[in-house]
């Protein structure tokens, strides 16, 4: 049984109300921070904890906070990124829906560390009821003196507002999010300048994921050293994984980054295995943007080592034989699923969500979608597979924001690992329209050559 820091109390009845949350020890971190720590000490604690951004990129949070410019007389802002839209990811929703006060508590402490007197939660527009839950929680916190002027007599003022988006995946990119928060189209900005220098309304801004900010609470409560003890190496603390696809128990799990991928998929504590007696075919371990892995490479690295649910282990082998932890959206495909069709839906998603600002992404995503549709429906050519590879290669790295990469990687990885499945679609156009293709050799053990003795 792994240790839980965020979801430990998620099942306590009434935890979404202030009374229960407070009774269960809520808001201790705010008391501790405001009464006994300076803002810089809070930042220092977060640095020491080794906490990495939980939104997808895994950037060290403390370092990000350290970059925040602090010019005299200019307000600074904390914006929480709750625009959770990456296919496969639904962890932040769970956190906000069940323990909204945890986010509010983390935000107050983080705002104190960053000197933000006005902090925003940018939540995706579709989460209407979650926004209402948060607003209720903010009202309760304000009524009990945790928000407003001179909190706990510390002289620190802070208020939190919820801002609902209106349906745009791109607004999960931090500068597009800021544009959207300013009431504009969600076009990502060209960096530099980075938000830490020029963010919301031109002021220094930190944008953090919901889970990242929630993790500040246990870090301050238990101390950075305690937090850093959990996990392995640079993957400290716990991580929320939202598991979905073809598994028995889809849902949000908090893991302490010491378990293997195999255990995560098959143990009853987590995903509970693959339903209907089917076999594991492939998995996208960190949200739709990260590379898909066939079962054999998922469970073991190319070196033959057991793959663990950590940032480092999931990335072992780079993009050739590894993937990424990403946002923790764990999508499992069983042996009846078609990788081409799945990749097509992702390509459609990215085409739909491209902001259209820069040319490789605007034009390339739609092109890939059309070619994938042709292949999926038996109208593809062998050369289309190479063409797809070339298109994704020309999008990747050449766009303003990471959406280009996010659109390119799933296609690249699908071709890299499942090329025979694409070819099968081309060679069997009739059959491809009638049934999904399910080759099972993806689960065969991989051959690891013995090292040559010198």
């Amino acid at each position, binding site marked *: 049984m792994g240790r839980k820091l965020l979801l430990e109390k998620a099942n306590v009845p009434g935890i979404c109300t202030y009374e229960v949350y407070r009774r269960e020890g809520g808001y201790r971190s705010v008391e501790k921070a405001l009464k006994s720590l300076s803002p810089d000490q809070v930042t220092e604690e977060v640095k020491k904890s080794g906490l990495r951004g939980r939104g997808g990129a895994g950037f060290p949070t403390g370092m990000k906070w350290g970059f925040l410019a602090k010019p005299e007389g200019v307000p600074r802002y904390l914006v929480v990124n709750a625009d959770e839209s990456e296919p496969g990811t639904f962890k932040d929703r769970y956190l906000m829906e069940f323990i909204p006060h945890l986010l509010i508590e983390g935000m107050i402490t983080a705002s104190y560390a960053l000197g933000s007197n006005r902090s925003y939660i940018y939540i995706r527009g579709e989460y209407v009821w979650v926004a209402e839950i948060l607003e209720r929680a903010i009202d309760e916190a304000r009524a009990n003196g945790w928000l407003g002027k001179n909190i706990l007599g510390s002289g620190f003022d802070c208020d939190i507002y919820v801002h609902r988006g209106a349906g745009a995946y791109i607004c999960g990119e931090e500068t597009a999010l800021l544009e959207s928060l300013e009431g504009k189209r969600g076009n990502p900005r060209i960096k530099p300048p980075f938000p830490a220098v020029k963010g919301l309304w031109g002021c220094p801004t930190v944008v953090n994921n919901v889970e990242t900010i929630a993790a500040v609470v246990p870090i301050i409560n238990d101390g950075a050293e305690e937090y850093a003890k959990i996990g392995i190496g640079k993957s400290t603390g716990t991580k929320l994984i939202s598991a979905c696809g073809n598994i028995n128990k889809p849902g949000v799990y908090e893991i302490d980054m010491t378990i293997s991928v195999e255990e995560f998929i098959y143990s009853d504590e987590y995903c509970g295995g693959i339903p209907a007696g089917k076999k594991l075919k492939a998995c996208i371990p960190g949200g739709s943007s990260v590379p898909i892995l066939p079962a054999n490479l998922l469970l073991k690295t190319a070196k033959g080592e057991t793959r663990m649910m950590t940032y480092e282990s999931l990335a072992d082998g780079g993009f050739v034989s590894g993937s990424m932890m990403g946002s923790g959206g764990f999508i499992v495909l069983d042996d009846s699923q078609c990788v081409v069709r799945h990749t097509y839906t992702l390509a459609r998603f990215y085409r739909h969500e491209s*902001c259209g600002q820069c040319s490789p992404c605007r034009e390339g995503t739609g092109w890939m979608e059309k070619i994938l549709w042709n292949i999926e429906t038996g109208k593809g050519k062998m050369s289309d597979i190479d063409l797809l590879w070339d298109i994704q290669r020309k999008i990747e790295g050449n766009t303003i924001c990471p959406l280009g990469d996010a659109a390119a990687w799933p296609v690249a990885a699908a071709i890299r690992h499942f090329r025979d499945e694409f070819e099968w679609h081309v060679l069997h156009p009739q059959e491809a329209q009638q049934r999904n293709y399910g080759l099972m050799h993806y689960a065969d053990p991989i051959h690891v050559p013995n090292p040559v003795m010198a």
Partner: protein
Amino acid sequence: MSSDTKNTIPTVKVTIDNITIEVPAGTTILNAARQIGGDVTPPAMCYYSKLEGSGGKCRTCLVEVAAGSAADPRPMPKLVASCRTGVMDGMVVKNITSDKVKDARAGVVEFLLLNHPLDCPVCDQAGECHLQDLGYEHGKEGTRYEFERRTFEKEDIGPYIQLHMTRCILCYRCTYVADQLTDQRVHGVLDRGDHAEISTHISKAIDNNFSGNMIDVCPVGALTDKTFRFKNRVWFTKPVLAHRDCPDCCGKVTLWQRGDEVLRVTARKDEWGEVCSYDGKPGWICNTCRFDKKAASDWVIEGPVNVNRHSVISQGHYSALQTPKETLPEVMGGRAPKLMMDIHDVSEVNKIELSQLPGAATGSDFNSPAPKEA
């Protein structure tokens, strides 16, 4: 910006394609490269130095930064948009010396042309179109796109400007013109992704005395001059410099004439296709000058425009002239021309000096041996 820093801007050294120059700190890579000129300058489809906030979108000006600065000589992990990346002291940039850049740029050209209608034969911009130039210089032959091209509903935006959305590459320049030159912006970028379009949403006429400058900044034929529409091909017209005393604008223009008839009036453009500056101010022109002053007598004519010899517009302007005395590098700012193929290496025929032949050359001219050098 405080004015006291104006005189003390330090300079930094930057190396672009092995050519080192010194530029004021804060200069972008693209503008530094423009100071060198020639092939070293990356193409720019969306950046426009006179429009604040422009650039970064088209990705044609991507370059490789092989060393970030003297202090931190690490290379940058990705190609960067040279129009929006400032130079650092000791930065080493690779443009045409980088295969990565050439490959990525060919990709961008392909993306830009993917849904472009390629209706150059009926497009008024043909001959002065930056997308044509870009495709010619940096693109690959043929297209690999086999799907129906995107089309848009036609929209009327008033009596002066013709909007052809299918040709648009979404550089956003015209929106910056509306924001920065006119008092009210009525058009913008609507919708998103591959459906994004320039539109007023309500077919409103764009009516402002400086709105015509959108035509000048448009790199393609998406915004063209309705008063010139289908009147002539630019390479049949004679561009001359002219001015008039205008109460609203600088009054310095290029007249595009055929005989004595003024077919079109535009702002004067520099070698990068941007409007020229006068006394540090961009020479935007007003709609009165552009659309209403269509008689030669409205203008004081200064003389012919110096047309770049690479431009198709120069066609017909060098007939019966003697061979220019300057050598090519002199014309090109000291740099040797980029030759696709040296025709003298492959053909005896090309030893013939065409300008010496009376009348048009015929097959028989090429069958006779090359004339001896005098």
